[in-house]
């Protein structure tokens, strides 16, 4: 059996110790990131909470009508395709003569972006897009033009009011 000096044994031990701690010059670590995205759908009347149509200054306007372009501005947000409907909250205006109420149909509306005026009713109808033709996702505004033509069939009153509902939907 060959003689092995203490120094040689020490060198051999050091070699194995150092070999055991060799590691690579590059290391990686990972983390997983999770995100929950809810359905985001919102609609707000940003201008035109109250629109005042005053026919007292020019009575001929009762028959020709008063038009207010972009009278209402609606701000929406949706991360799904959407459409927007409009309807009157009641069949008739409040105020005036209860026996001869002024119907919601004297109000005509259209989208500021185009189209033709449509009489307002309590039936929800399209203001922008529809169930079968939804608008793309995103956030922006929709303008509403109004034209009111009361005619001469309703008694004078300064307190005619009616509510209008705007509904955004992704269904």
């Amino acid at each position, binding site marked *: 059996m060959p003689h092995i000096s203490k120094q040689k044994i020490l060198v051999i031990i050091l070699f194995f110790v150092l070999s055991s701690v060799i590691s690579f010059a*590059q290391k990686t670590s*990972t983390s997983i990131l999770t995100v929950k995205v*809810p359905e985001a759908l919102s609609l707000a009347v940003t201008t035109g909470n109250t629109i005042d149509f005053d026919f007292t200054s020019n009575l001929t306007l009762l028959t020709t009508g008063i038009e207010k372009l972009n009278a209402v501005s609606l701000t929406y947000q949706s991360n799904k395709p959407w459409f927007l409907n409009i309807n009157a909250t009641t069949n008739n205006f409040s105020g005036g003569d209860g026996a001869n109420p002024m119907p919601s149909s004297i109000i005509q509306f259209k989208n500021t972006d185009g189209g033709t005026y449509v009489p307002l009713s309590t039936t929800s109808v399209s203001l922008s897009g529809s169930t079968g033709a939804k608008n793309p996702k995103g956030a922006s505004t929709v303008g509403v033009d109004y034209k009111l033509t009361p005619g001469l069939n309703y008694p004078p009153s300064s307190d005619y009011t009616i509510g209008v509902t705007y509904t955004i939907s992704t269904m």
Partner: protein
Amino acid sequence: MKKIYSAALIVLSFIIGTNSAKAQSSQTSNVAVTIATVTELTANNTSLATFAFATGAELETGITQSNAVNLAYKSNKLTKITIKALGTGFFSSTAGSTDMPVSVIQWKKNGSGSLIPLSTTAADLSPSQAKGSSNFGVDYKITPGLQYNPASDYTVTIEYTLTAL
């Protein structure tokens, strides 16, 4: 007879003299030491807290998590740490066909720099680190916007790589 004793003393003296010469001896050996490059990197948070958006406004303005993950490193060489996504988009089994890209994620080293969109290309998160051991946090901001389908299971894996320079 005197002559015999004298000869024996001379021989003993010679033997003793020879042993005295062996009482000191020196040898040399080379001690070879190999110090390998040591690099260690550990993310303390392998699953980050969920970025749970509640409103459309949050989706548009984004949610920030400071120190969302802490990276501890150790090396006996100058090193750098890079960051990248393991995939171009989030995975979701419920979101449908709209793929949310990883670029909605922005990152930065906590306490320095500005937010940078994440991609599959490795970018320098910490471009030069002295030898030794230390740690730092990573901030994330996610801004999905309104273009991606609602889902509660969007996930993506982010990889951090420590490299000896």
